[in-house]
């Protein structure tokens, strides 16, 4: 670009996203992402368990409001996220390329991410009637079962798919009325932080999605053990780690959702059962007349 030599480019500070704000980690720590050739792409917040604790507080606070919005509105908001992502597609492609993804694959990852949001936006007011039921009972009762969001869901996003893996995991969680705290990919965290900016511009209420960056090893245990988290989703855990997550999750009977081995770019990575995975079934017995 002409005259670019006279100007120093302004680099973005990648921060975490908690309660609708972009703070730095309370721990003041960071780690660096390199571009594969030894160059430093960015400094990334090395989030701490206290950041996680704060994020869960924000998510819990946002839950009554978000779960109380109409299915239609949640769908509209997911659609809005897709619109915003579409408008910023080039930025995400560039960020993926910067993190070592080929141009062609980066383009596809962004496109599929947008489509995935549209997919779940469409399901927002439809999954309930698919999974709900009127149950036959041999007493004068009208008996029916329906879904309710489980609450705060902690998500350990996949490491290899910085954007698509992230989007594919949060969309079914929030479309069902849950709020979430997500640990971004450790290797490729840039897109998750930029995606938080997209969420921020899409009428997603503060605290519904909270994004942390940091080390898996340090934070996984916290994601699994926190008593105020109702479900934990993991995507990469080796057998030992998965067992550890399940043991920790058992303390307050969290739902444990195993997404290991998913090919995120595949059609199979999206279906309404993924919404149901973080829902509770409530059954009501309603007396019938005389």
């Amino acid at each position: 670009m002409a005259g670019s030599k006279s100007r120093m480019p302004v680099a973005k500070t990648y921060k975490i996203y908690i309660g609708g704000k972009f703070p730095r980690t309370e721990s003041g720590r960071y780690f660096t992402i390199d571009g594969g050739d030894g160059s430093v792409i960015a400094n990334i917040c090395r989030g701490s368990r206290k950041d996680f604790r704060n994020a869960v507080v924000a998510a819990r606070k946002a839950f009554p409001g978000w779960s109380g919005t109409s299915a239609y509105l949640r769908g509209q908001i997911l659609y809005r996220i897709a619109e915003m992502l579409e408008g910023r597609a080039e930025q995400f492609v560039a960020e993926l390329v910067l993190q070592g993804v080929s141009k062609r694959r980066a383009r596809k990852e962004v496109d599929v991410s947008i489509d995935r949001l549209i997919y779940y936006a469409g399901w927002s007011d439809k999954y309930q009637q698919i999974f709900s039921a009127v149950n036959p009972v041999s007493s004068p009762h009208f008996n029916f079962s329906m879904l309710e969001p489980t609450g705060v869901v902690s998500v350990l996003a996949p490491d290899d798919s910085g954007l698509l893996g992230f989007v594919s995991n949060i969309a079914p969680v929030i479309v069902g009325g849950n709020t979430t705290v997500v640990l971004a990919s450790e290797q490729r965290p840039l897109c998750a932080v930029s995606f938080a900016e997209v969420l921020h511009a899409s009428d997603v209420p503060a605290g519904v999605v909270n994004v942390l960056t940091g080390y898996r090893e340090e934070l996984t245990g916290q994601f699994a053990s926190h008593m105020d988290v109702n479900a934990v989703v993991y995507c990469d855990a080796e057998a030992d780690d998965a067992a550890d997550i399940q043991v920790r999750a058992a303390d307050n009977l969290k739902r444990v959702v195993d997404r290991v081995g998913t090919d995120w770019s595949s059609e199979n990575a999206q279906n309404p059962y993924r919404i149901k995975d973080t829902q509770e079934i409530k059954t009501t017995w309603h007396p019938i007349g005389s």
Partner: protein
Amino acid sequence: MSLAAVAASGRIPDMGQVTLVDEVGVKERAARFQTRSIKKESKAEALRMVLSMIDLTTLEGQDTPGKVRQLCQKAIDLHDALPDLPQVAAVCVYPTMVGVARKVLGDADIKVASVATAFPSGMAPRQIKLEETRIAVEEGADEIDMVISRGRFLQGEYDFVFDEIAAIKEACGDAHLKVILETGELGALDRVRRASVLAMHAGADFIKTSTGKIQPAATLPVTLVMLQAIRDHYYETGRMVGMKPAGGISSAKLAVHYLVMLRETLGNAWITPEWYRFGASSLANDVLMQIRKQATGVYQSADYFSKD
């Protein structure tokens, strides 16, 4: 009979002589207490101390005997999963609920505190305030939390406010008197200091920041000004007066910072439920969650702690 005759110092202080407050300095000083890092054993000890100083409070128009009974049960037995917890200092209720609380608490070493004097506004004739105080004491209140007449105070009618506090003190008999200044309605810190001095000279056993019904309620700067007034009153008269910040202190961490401020302003003599209280409804649960977090290493959820 002269009402002032029964007051602590026996005279109305010259309000023109009350020390002025350096507002900027107080705020900076108060902010520094929040930079203290309290960890491990000190934190564990501080959390238990906070619990022992809590006046477990319910002051809602929707209070029922059932709710008060439940609150008293909680005061006696804070959390089953944590044995050997200290008890809270008191239960704080409206006068009509004092009898209920007294009955449930029985022999437990937990005081019954009652707000009185047309709480929270204080807008009632003096006879009614006195009668309300007497009734609360007869019903079994150990402590009375009165509100001052802020309107009169702001008009500069210090004599009126002084006489009123002294009269209520007399009506309290053996019950301890906490005087609520409602600092959120007083405005400048200078007025907080003046109201503190007035209340202490009029016989207050405790001075208390707020009713909890007005924002802002207790803040660190306001509490610091009141603590300094207590300190100077002690140097002047040799009489200890207690302090109770109330309203808005809902996190354990903040409560610990209040204790740090207490320690560094008044010293160890005041760090006991006899001289320092927290007025709070949700603080106890946050402290319990922190104590349990320390015991288990796992962050806790409000779902597992009883609301009342």
